[in-house]
């Protein structure tokens, strides 16, 4: 159900950015860390419900999953999501759908240990949810605005 909050955040952010520009938003591309396991169908459903009567009225939401790279600051080794799959599965099993990293991917260091030295001193690339792209129609032309 957290997906509703994510849709809300996306819409509010794009509305705030659109402000009083004379545009129609055609597409929003959202980047999410794959291990948040957001349910894309619920997310799109929520987005479609909440976007009504706004500059996002005709907008499509595209969700792109990002696999993070992990680096251990204790031993220096790098690893991928696949190397900690068992650990993540274990946490999901304990908590169910609304598991901690579903809400807050940045909590990963508290729940994941380095597969080499066991430390929690882990840095992730791409742990944040990002709006990576907005496509707008302005004066009959569709153009892409990239974001970080």
């Amino acid at each position: 159900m957290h997906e509703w909050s994510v849709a809300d955040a996306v819409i509010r952010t794009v509305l705030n950015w659109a402000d009083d520009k004379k545009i129609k938003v055609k597409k929003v591309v959202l980047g999410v860390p794959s291990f948040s396991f957001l349910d894309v169908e619920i997310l799109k459903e929520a987005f479609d419900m909440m976007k009504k009567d706004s500059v996002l009225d005709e907008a499509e939401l595209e969700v792109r999953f990002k696999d993070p790279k992990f680096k251990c600051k204790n031993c220096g080794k790098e690893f991928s999501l696949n190397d900690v799959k068992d650990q993540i599965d274990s946490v999901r099993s304990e908590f169910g759908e609304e598991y901690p990293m579903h809400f807050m991917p940045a909590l990963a260091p508290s729940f994941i240990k380095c597969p080499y030295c066991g430390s929690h001193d882990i840095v992730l690339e791409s742990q944040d949810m990002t709006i990576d792209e907005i496509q707008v129609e302005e004066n009959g032309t569709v153009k892409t605005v990239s974001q970080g």
Partner: protein
Amino acid sequence: MEPLRQLAKDKLSGKRVYAVMSAKGGVGKSVISSLLALTIGNTTLIDLDIHTMAIPKLFGLEGKLHEVTKNGIEPFEVKTTKIVSLSGIVKDNYVILPGENQSSIMESLIAYSHIDSNTVLFDLSPGLGDEILVLERITDFTPIVVTTPSKISKRVVDYLIRYLRERGKEPKILVNLAYMDCDGKVVKPFGEYEGFGLPIDPN
């Protein structure tokens, strides 16, 4: 363009926001923020101390997970006080994190909470870091600064008071653990103070 920041801002927009703060630990911020929330009534109390997570412990809510609805994280309700804490997300796990992850978690906790009271009260962690910087970039809050009478606490808390004044905020200051009743005799174990002081009260 930051979705969580935007959502957090919107959630607090138009609310009366207070932050119970100190640069010093163990002065009674969590106890006082809990008492204030209960006293004010119809308040959402958000526990921003992401490592200590004391608020649910004070209310006997340990081990409980927050329910999540279409409206977001549903607070625990105690009388007319609504409580949100990271411990309702992580259960009884410890939260150990590098510094760079702190602000995202604080922003997320605010952004995703279901806030439908007109008053919001934050219980902050000690230190002068993201807890203050995050709150400042999201909302215009009224600072309530807690200290004890000890010289150490006063000097450390002075850092925060100076910072707040530089940012154009005049804090309300509370002196806690001010004195104790020793069989009718007033004892001040942590030092002298001016103005109104809250007693050391085992109850």
